[in-house]
């Protein structure tokens, strides 16, 4: 698990470079992805895939806003690179492959994983955006 967390840092960092992120933000973008993946692994062990996706994408969203606030930059480099490991690209493919092979049980299992993965990300990011908007509004009122 430690090895996977270690490589999630580099995977997200690689993506930050692909998105041409400013140099000062690359490390933090990679860190966002690594922390998100760590939470995913830990929560998945204890509470299952559904909770893991929602909690890790929520943490990625909140961390991204936090780093963008600290570095006084846009939130995109952090959130876009950080969320990539959670996007269910591989399960989507295996859903299709299993359908082609006629393994309907396996296909529906992968389809469920894809569906939960995609909507878990939507819910996690939406909650983090809502939190941040509330915080910004409160700051404006103060």
């Amino acid at each position, binding site marked *: 698990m430690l*090895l*996977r967390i270690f*490589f*999630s*840092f*580099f*995977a997200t*960092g*690689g*993506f930050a*470079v*692909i*998105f*041409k*992120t*400013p140099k000062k*933000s690359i490390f933090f973008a990679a860190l966002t992805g690594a922390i998100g*993946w760590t939470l995913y692994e830990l929560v998945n062990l204890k509470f299952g895939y559904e909770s893991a996706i929602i909690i890790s994408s929520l943490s990625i969203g909140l961390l991204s806003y936090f780093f963008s606030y600290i570095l006084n*930059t*846009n939130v*995109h*480099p952090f*959130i*876009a*690179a950080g*969320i*990539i*490991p959670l*996007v269910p*690209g*591989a399960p*989507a*493919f*295996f*859903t*299709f*492959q299993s359908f*082609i*092979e006629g393994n309907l049980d396996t296909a529906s299992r992968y389809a469920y994983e894809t569906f939960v993965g995609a909507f878990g*990300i*939507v819910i996690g*990011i*939406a909650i983090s*955006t*809502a939190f941040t*908007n509330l915080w910004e509004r409160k700051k404006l009122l103060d």
Partner: protein
Amino acid sequence: MDLARELYYYGSNATEIENYITQIGKTYELDVQIASIGTVLYITVIDRTGKSLTRIERINYTSIDFEKLSIWESFIKKILKEKPPFTFIRDEIKRIKYENKNLVHSFSLLIIAVFIASFSFSFVFKGNLLESFISGIVGTTVYYVTINLKNKILRDFIAGFSIYSIIEVFNLFTEIRTYPILAGAIMVFVPGLLLTNAIMEIGDRNLVSGVSKLVESVFILGALVLGAGIATAIWR
């Protein structure tokens, strides 16, 4: 319009573009209405005498570049803070556009980053050293071959097809598992920014723009999966 177009082009989302342009309007005591919907920008500016000017512009494709995006955002923040004269803004826009044109990112660095991303993702998806290395090679090769294709759906379809086919070729020579290699290599083509922008826009109730981006990202992801799926059927 120039500022909105540049922000859109380099990867900003609809809500941010609309907020920035509205704030600039307020700074200069102009009533600005802007809508960034799908691939079209609509701007109406009403001055103090009530005269209005409307412009519509279609943006056919985007190029994600957060460094250039941050340069434009810094300029907008400067406008909001210092309220410089319009002639200065016009000159600065020309200057930044010229500088951005000359700001070329290292292509070799990009290719190395693609390799690292595919290699590392394969490890993340429980691949061993050999499988991760093959994933890196496959991801980098396909990325290099498809980099100039502007149509994202076609690009991802070809990418999915090629990735699976190359993995099967490797499979002829050595005993490897498809899953971690494929999972690592296809990650480079997943429309992550489009998806997150879509979600954030829907969250901000920018529904038309958000849903159109969400649909586009689903189609792109679908093309990637379909390409790989067709390759599976052929190799079977």
